């Protein structure tokens, strides 16, 4: 199928296709980070993760509307405020959900799955009642639109670059918080031995609540970033949930590095396959490969061999 294209064309296609894969990679990482914290560290299956993302997207939409109506002069910078608000809104909702629902279920992971699924249905309907069934479009500031021309045939979308930069930033922040900060040590201590952690004076209930809230907050930021490339509707969140879980599981649930590696391999596979076949078949083959590998290597890409 390459016969019809010139060498130069092919070169730029591979560059751009690789770049498309990188955008997809950023999307997966953003989605999966929050879940990797909640599922990997706490063992909670948060089926409402997509709805936390969409909350972030709706917050972004509302912020953009506010700026357009009241502060049009500052519109070009609204996105940064919107992301912070998205983080706070999703985080706050996460905290509430943890307090009402999740904390009763830490010993029953499969039941968290059912309960958070119920939560996701209720949130969807709530969004529909509040924001309407139709998708909302978030208007971006001018500087985020369009693309950078690298060469004549290679063009790089600006919002793609922005999403990637954001992904790097958030990943570093999460890595710092989880592995370097005192609080991250507490989280890991609680994960490894709840009773012991409690005995040495860590407030485990508080750590749980903030961990869950952090995961949800990151989902909110992800949602905010997605308004640049995707759609925002009451049920948009559900589209992402399976992919996200697969990314986390494929990476090895407790490993941040694994999550990144798995997001990278899945996104590059899918984006490469998409060039050779229809989008739906590319998706099927990618998912099949992931499930197949998981069947052969259930612990995922990165997993610690521990003494049980």
């Amino acid at each position, binding site marked *: 199928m390459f016969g019809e294209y010139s060498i130069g064309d092919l070169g730029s296609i591979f560059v751009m296709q690789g770049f*498309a894969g990188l955008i997809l990679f950023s999307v997966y990482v953003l989605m999966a980070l929050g879940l990797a914290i909640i599922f990997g560290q706490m063992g909670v299956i948060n089926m409402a993760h997509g709805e936390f993302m969409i909350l972030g997207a709706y917050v972004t939409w509302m912020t953009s509307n506010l700026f357009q109506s009241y502060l049009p002069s500052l519109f070009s910078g609204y996105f940064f405020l919107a992301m912070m608000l998205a983080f706070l809104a999703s985080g706050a909702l996460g905290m509430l959900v943890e307090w009402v629902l999740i904390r009763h279920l830490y010993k029953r992971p499969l039941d968290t799955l059912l309960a958070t699924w119920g939560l996701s249905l209720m949130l969807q309907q709530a969004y529909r009642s509040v924001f309407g069934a139709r998708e909302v479009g978030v208007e971006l500031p001018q500087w985020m639109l369009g693309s950078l021309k690298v060469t004549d045939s290679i063009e790089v979308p600006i919002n793609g670059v922005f999403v990637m930069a954001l992904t790097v930033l958030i990943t570093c922040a999460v890595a710092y918080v989880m592995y370097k900060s005192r609080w991250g040590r507490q989280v890991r201590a609680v994960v490894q031995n709840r009773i012991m952690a409690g005995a040495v004076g860590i407030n485990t209930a508080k750590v749980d609540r903030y961990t869950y809230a952090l995961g949800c907050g990151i989902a909110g930021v992800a949602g905010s970033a997605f308004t640049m490339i995707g759609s925002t509707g009451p049920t948009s969140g559900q589209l992402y949930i399976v992919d996200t879980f697969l990314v986390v599981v494929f990476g090895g649930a407790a490993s941040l590095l694994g999550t990144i590696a798995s997001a990278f391999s899945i996104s590059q596979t899918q984006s490469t396959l998409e060039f050779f076949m*229809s989008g739906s078949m590319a998706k099927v083959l990618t998912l099949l490969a992931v499930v197949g590998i998981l069947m052969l290597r259930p612990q995922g890409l990165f997993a610690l061999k521990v003494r049980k």
Partner: protein
Amino acid sequence: MSDEPNKGLQSPLRRKLLMGAAALPFVSILPRPSFGAGPATATVNTTGLAVTDTEVTVGILHSATGTMAISETGSIQAEKLAIEQINAAGGVLGRKIKFIQEDGASDWPTFAEKAKKLLVNDKVAAIMGCWTSASRKAVLPVVEQYNGMLYYPTFYEGLEQSKNVIYTGQEATQQILAGLNWIAKEKGAKSFFFIGSDYIWPRTSNKIARKHVENVLKGKVVGEEYYALGSTQFNSVINKIKLTKPDVIFTDVVGGSNVAFYKQLKAAGVDLSKQALLTISVTEDEIDGIGGENIAGAYACMKYFQSLDNANNKAFVAAFKKMWGEKTVIGDVTQAAYLGPWLWKLTVEKAGSFDVDKIAAASPGIEFKGAPEAYVRIHENHHLWSKTRVGKAKLDGQFELIFETSDLVEPDPFPKGYQ
């Protein structure tokens, strides 16, 4: 939902008062017509439909919940508006139209189940409903088995014709061919890239478009891609488009995927003022979510735009916004849904009966001069003769009419040479 038939209330005055009260929110300022002066029920209803001396019941069957609620809300609103207007103008054969609304919940078997309920339990005289092809395919055997009448509003793939269905939207050849001809002539387009959502309507439409491009326009299709419903990543196909440099991108992507597609297209530096794009799936409704700035410059090919400049349409748009709010937009399907109750009323009056068989027989030739899209007529094959128009998307989310066929286009659900 409207009031139940009140058999216990014999006084005509009380009845009228009650009915007025029920309709109050919508038509309180209109002169209140009186119902019950039409021909005897026994003569106009010989098959036991829900028709009384003063009322006739129809069903509205769309998704109020689930993923399709986004699209179907407009149709529900249009059908309710039409029913209110018909009632305000004296109803059908002197009877007030009462409607029972059922929720198909974006789930095809639920559509079939609710259609059966409307026909078997509620004995509705007609159903205004369905949106996706899948829901229509699910409902079709039910309306055929229980001999109901369905008014289906969406533009669709064709390959279907039923005594029990009136298709108020366009079938594929009607919608596509004129648009392709126009863009081939106007832009000198020779090469086309097709991209659609992965299901029957885009696939059939693209099949017809491909035959037309190859056989009639003597052009070339340089790519044909399908993405699963709900996909949000189009960067790969955009790269392919950039590589193949088609004269025209021809799209039938539906639903939320549109938002992602146009945003990513814009972000990838595809300038729609230079790259011609012809869509058959984006109406004003979709632009609401996509954002005018992301799609401005694209051409859409269908039979109706909200901006159409004629008296019928101005009145329709004003009434619609009055009923459903200033911010609502009206797309092609919404308008087609609005035609349903009116066409049914006209047919019933011509047939002089609510009987489904008589309506089915009387339908061909029914003309509706008050349609917002302007004059339409029902064909022998139960589709509509209608004009096809091309509009150019503007920043404000409206289309500017660029072209319309001079004559009504004949519906041809089983096009020879296109299968």
